[in-house]
């Protein structure tokens, strides 16, 4: 068993980065995630593992530092919160277009604009649909506990290097600020240039020895045919992720008439909602997507065979709900899909969720059969 | 006193005919040719080869690195 500690989610992100052999962190302060860099600066990992930590002049600079480090084959990361992630959008697109591995953490706060500093899940579209320009996808992991904040740092790097694609941990201010018991991972040594080459081939800019051709990190291609071929290659990669990397968790779904779909902080509340609903005699289950991209389409299709309705419960005005609808539609089902969520930094209560479920599915609850659109 | 003789070799196909070498030459050795290369540029050539001392000014200012310079005492 690893070292047990009581820690904040944001602090754990920092600790997990040091322990998994991260080479560099580049960030800019923004509430509610500033503890990530503060923890790193206090820990001084450069003395311990050689990890570089640098406070950049902006989120724009941070993400381009990540680009530079990732282009040298290093395990590098940044963290920010919603407005800061918007500023990074261009850089993230470049990283995806140049096929570089890295980790970006978004500890979401309410928007749009400067919004609020309270928790939110309103950056779902930005995270899973790209966010920056061009056809690209991030691997998006949504932790629901401080323990998962710890575990997903290493997992993100593993997936990022496996696919040479940026990975994102999409969390929120509640999980970032929350203190929980966490079992920390053991220390892993940082990779050497040789190990990186062994793991993922010779593509990094490390300085050109006479034994190989020069390596170029770029997303630019003026030949449309080659650019289209690049896009096809990216899409193949995303398809492979959809086949192999979907992660989710089911809670009381076996006999469920209604499925709540919720991730991150929201899913923790919805576990309680399931219990309340069941105590009232309603057969409600919970599907918790762990990967938001790739999205768990297949299990939704399967659940749609029996379920009378899906309720997407997000701290947003309804974003993930669209992906659930698509999954149901793709499966050829007409199961009704609804959304419930509070915004502006307000976290819904378990009771509110049950009330919303009863309200939005009153027809199904009264008549017990699916109705057509 | 030993005389120095130089020679300029222009890679005709890579020359873009910008003429910077022509004005850089202190001995009026180079001119742009009336003929053009396959890209349509009036390439540089030694119009006055005997005047060349191989100072390489032409090569240094050439943006396309299409000039090679030789020099020997005669």
């Amino acid at each position, binding site marked *: 068993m690893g070292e047990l500690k009581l820690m904040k989610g944001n602090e754990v992100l920092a600790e997990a980065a040091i322990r998994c052999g991260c080479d560099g962190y580049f960030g800019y302060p923004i509430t509610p995630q500033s503890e990530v860099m503060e923890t790193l600066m206090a820990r001084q990992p450069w003395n311990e593992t050689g990890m570089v930590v640098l406070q950049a002049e902006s989120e724009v600079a941070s993400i381009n*530092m990540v680009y530079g480090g990732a282009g040298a084959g290093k395990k590098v990361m940044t963290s920010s919160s919603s407005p800061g992630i918007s500023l990074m959008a261009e850089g993230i697109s470049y990283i995806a277009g140049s096929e570089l591995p890295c980790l970006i953490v978004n500890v979401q706060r309410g928007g749009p604009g400067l919004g609020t500093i309270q928790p939110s899940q309103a950056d779902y579209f930005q995270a899973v649909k790209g966010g920056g320009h061009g056809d690209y996808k991030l691997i998006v992991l949504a932790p629901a506990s401080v323990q998962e904040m710890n575990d997903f740092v290493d997992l993100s790097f593993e997936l990022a290097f496996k696919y040479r694609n940026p990975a994102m941990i999409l969390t929120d201010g509640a999980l970032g600020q929350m203190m929980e018991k966490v079992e920390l991972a053991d220390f892993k040594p940082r990779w050497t240039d040789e190990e990186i080459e062994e793991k993922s081939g010779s593509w990094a800019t490390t300085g050109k020895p006479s034994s190989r051709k020069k390596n170029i990190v770029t997303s630019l291609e003026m030949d449309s045919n080659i650019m289209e071929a690049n896009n096809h290659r990216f899409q193949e990669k995303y398809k492979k992720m959809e086949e192999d990397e979907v992660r989710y968790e089911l809670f009381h779904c076996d006999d469920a008439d209604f499925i709540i779909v919720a991730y991150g902080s929201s899913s923790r509340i919805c576990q309680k909602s399931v219990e309340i609903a069941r105590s009232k005699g309603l057969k409600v289950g919970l599907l918790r997507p762990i990967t938001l991209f790739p999205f768990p389409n297949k299990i939704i299709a399967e659940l749609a065979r029996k379920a009378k309705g899906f309720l997407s419960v997000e701290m947003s005005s309804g974003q993930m709900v669209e992906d659930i609808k698509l999954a149901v539609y793709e499966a050829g089902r007409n199961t009704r899909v609804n959304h419930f969520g509070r915004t502006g930094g307000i976290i819904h209560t378990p009771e509110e969720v049950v009330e919303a479920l009863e309200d939005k599915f009153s027809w199904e609850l009264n008549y017990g059969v699916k109705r057509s659109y | 006193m030993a005389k120095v003789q130089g020679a300029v070799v222009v890679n005709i196909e890579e020359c873009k005919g910008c003429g910077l070498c022509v004005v850089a030459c202190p001995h009026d050795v180079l001119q742009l040719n009336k003929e053009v290369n396959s890209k349509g540029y009036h390439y540089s050539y030694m119009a006055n080869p005997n005047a060349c001392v191989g100072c390489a000014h032409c090569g240094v200012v050439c943006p396309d690195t299409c000039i090679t310079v030789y020099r020997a005492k005669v």
Partner: protein
Amino acid sequence: MELKDLIKPENLVYGKTKILEDEPMHYCPGCSHGVVHKLLAELIGEMGLQEKTIGIAPVGCAVFAYKYLDIDWQEAAHGRAPAVATALIRLKPDNFVFTYQGDGDLASIGAAEIMHACNRGENILVIFINNGIYGMTGGQMAPTTIEGMVTSTTPGGRNVDLNGYPMKITNLIAQLPGTSYVTRQAVHTASAARKCKRSIKKAIENVLDKKGTSFVEVVSTCNSGWKMTPVGANTWMEDNMIPYYPLGDLKDSVKGENSSEN
């Protein structure tokens, strides 16, 4: 002596360095970029730095710089080369890292990144090509466009009341304690180019000695953007650009020792 007797390897005095690729450059005839690329390539070869060098290409005309020098390269987002270089030199302190940026890239969209990288004293070389115009996008006004200069977005000439003043960003850079060697050079004549090469060499040595950021501005021409002949552009540059951007060293020091001469 017959030419064929003269043109022999033992008589070679000037030729192409190995670090330069055979790929013909995409630059317009007479463009200063080609000369600066060549100087850098020669120095990387002469100083034995090929295995250590990582270049950062900008967005602008030099976006394809990575095609021309046989070294590892990263192509940065517009203006962000100093941030990219910062991470590289921090993570790989034994490498030689340089950015190659134009005036739009460095002094406009990337003004924050260059200031902060220089202020932190990152041990990188910055090559700054100042031709007072946006070449790649078709000749628009740059922060360094001089007063009265006609561009496609200042068709009546740069009006300082409307467009602000031409920015002497190198002078600002020289005031930052993180920089060690800050100089302004040109490559329009053979002697200027040779002098520029000596400056870049000194800048590289400073970077390798971890003295802080070295910054070499090269006042350059963009004859296509300026709508002049290459030779005419050189003359115009001497008459109009260099008086506003005078050549010479602005600072020769070590990071933290403030000996700015301006």
